[in-house]
């Protein structure tokens, strides 16, 4: 099965935003997007290994505003420590899906088989439905959702994607951090504003 590198299309870019782990920070980020008319495709937030910081992974719709403008406005938030743009082809992305699908005795076998193909897990079983958990790239989850839909989706919850930069394969190449957003030597991973 072929999964497109970025199922959401080129109009979506992933920003990995390191923020201070303080109350109200998510509201500040969300409020910025809202008041400036920027569209969010998905957003996931969680603590990092350092308890002082959280990481917000935002998939932004760059048709609503240029990426550079979104990044620079985000960077003005005092609680935003650094912003890294992750180009899909140079990032490892993942998303989690929980889905309850109608599956009576007649379809149950087919559904379980499909879940197996996608390496998902049946996490709950009812009389006429199943709850499935599936982790993977957003494209893979899109495909699964598409294939399972005819059976009847009862409820569905996706986490929104999280991402980290892909690791370098060659000793000579390094990740470039660019403060202030000027220039783009690395091309694939831009740290727009790094904590000092």
């Amino acid at each position, binding site marked *: 099965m072929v999964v497109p590198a970025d199922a959401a299309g080129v109009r979506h870019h992933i920003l990995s935003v390191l*923020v*201070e782990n303080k*109350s*109200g920070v998510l*509201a*500040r980020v969300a*409020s*910025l997007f809202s*008041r400036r008319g920027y569209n969010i495709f998905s957003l996931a937030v969680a603590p990092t290994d350092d308890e*002082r910081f959280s990481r917000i992974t935002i998939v932004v719709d760059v048709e609503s505003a*240029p990426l*550079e*403008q979104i990044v*620079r*406005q985000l*960077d*003005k*938030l*005092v*609680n*935003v*420590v*650094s912003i890294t743009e992750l180009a899909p082809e140079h990032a490892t992305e993942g998303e989690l899906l929980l889905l309850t699908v109608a599956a009576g005795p007649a379809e149950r076998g087919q559904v379980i088989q499909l879940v197996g193909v996608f390496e998902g897990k049946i996490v709950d079983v009812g009389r006429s439905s199943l709850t499935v958990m599936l982790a993977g790239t957003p494209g893979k989850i899109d495909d699964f959702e598409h294939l399972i839909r005819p059976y009847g989706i009862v409820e569905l919850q996706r986490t929104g994607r999280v991402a980290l930069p892909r690791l370098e394969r060659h000793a000579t190449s390094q990740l470039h951090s660019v*403060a*202030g*957003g*000027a220039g783009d030597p690395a091309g694939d991973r831009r740290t727009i*504003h790094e*904590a*000092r």
Partner: protein
Amino acid sequence: MRITGAQALIKSLEMQGVEVVFGLPGGAILPVYDPILDSTIRHILVRHEQGAGHAAEGYAHVTGRPGVAMVTSGPGATNIVTPLMDAMMDSIPLVVVSGQVPTAAIGTDAFQETAITTITMGITKHNWLVTNAADIPRVVAEAFHVATTGRPGPVLIDVPKDVSNAEMDWYWPQSLDELDLPGYHPSTTGDPVLVRQAAELILQAQRPVVYAGGGILKARAAGVLRQLVERTGIPVVTTLMARGAFPDRHPLALGMPGMHGNYTAVTAMQRADLLLALGSRFDDRVTGKVAAFAPGAKVVHVDIDPAELGKVRRPDVAIAGDCKVVIEALLEALHELGLGAPGTEPAPGSPAAARPDLAPWLAQLRAWQEQFPLTYDQDSGGPLKPQFVVETLRDMTPDDTIVVAGVGQHQMWASQYWKFDHPYTWVNSGGSGTMGFAVPASIGAKVGRPDAMVWAIDGDGCFQMTAQELVTASAERIPVKVAILNNAYLGMVRQWQELFYEERYSEVYLSPDLPDYVKWAEAMGCVGLRVETPEEVAPAIDKANAVDDRPVVIDFRTDAFEKVYPMVPAGASNDDIIVGPAQGQGGR
């Protein structure tokens, strides 16, 4: 030393060098008001919290130091929302301290509770809810640092009552390292490669214009701007927020551009081949229709806020940095490219030696200035023209008089007809257009610059919004002067209804004598004067100038039919500028 959070707060303000706080107490901020009695800080009791905010803005405008205001929770805090928004739009350093209900009551809809940090999130540069008394000195230091560095702006510190009552061990952060701002690192120096490119563009331009904005004043860069202009011979427009950043009486001054800018300033930008945008932000009131703005111009954009670069107009050279630092670097780069001091020959063979002659461009600008002057007609027996009041006031007051305006027609006439030859002598609400700004802001300006004469030029509509602060001014012996250009209308709205709504006047009439402004002024402890004819203008201003122990209000009854010209209709191209009947013929 064990002290309360409230004492720590006042002590922290003292450590920041705060001389004056504008405010109004209430329940949640009560603990903080007690140590004010023992403090060196002067507290000025306003009559409405909005007045505290605008007064603090006026103070910040003229001094360059952050203005400080203090309010209680709930309605006290929401009453200062407008000044916070105003300060955000105009990049004014402002520190507002608000009381909050006790931490245990937060979220319970307690009496006078409101989530002011949530409300002001988008209209402050940053805000803080303090939950621990021990954090107070650090948060105050952070607040002043954030408000005054990078692009200045307003901040708010929300202090719950139990936090100000709690005890803490006093300390004061000794350096920026002790602040908890891991994500805040404003940079000021421009990229030297880009500065060099900007200098090269300057030396290639045939029709350059400096487009100076409020950032020049924020960066204290008026002096180096003048050096740059005199070194390069490039003419300058000063935006509404930059009036005074370059002397209006200088031969290279073109005055204000924009919707009500003069013909030459507007058209110079339209015909320019290079715009040197320094601390300006391509505001819609300057650009008109963006797609038709300065179509032939390359743009060098210098701003301390990287988000301004390319927000509206894609620059050819974008320099993130402080205007003063970048202009100094630009002067250095121009020197390296062979451009010497004014009057000296460029170095032979240097890029400067090959520079186009600006004389034809300057001659064109002179021709426009002669053809389309900024003028009006004052008939000797006719109704009093507001522009005549502004010009007479200008000519009868010291050169460094501070002029404070509200928002509307009177603001535009003040900006157009005053001659600003000194920085920090013009105080107004630019980006947010806050009616009622002038009276309280003039009070703050006078407190910040007690040595200077301060005149508010206000409209009758604006005056009615915040006039009660003249009670504050009288009580505190702050002798501001207010010239009301009373045309009995919400004049700018009336002008638009006349021009764009077929003279259908909807809800704009105010009456010239309800209220009676003279009696109202007197009731507030001010001297009140009324002027109805051109002949009475000068004597009344003489009288007002002689008063220095209380505020003065002059009710100038001006022509209700006078309109602000030139005018670029909203959304139109700057090429479609309309000049007034007295302002020349044959505009395109």
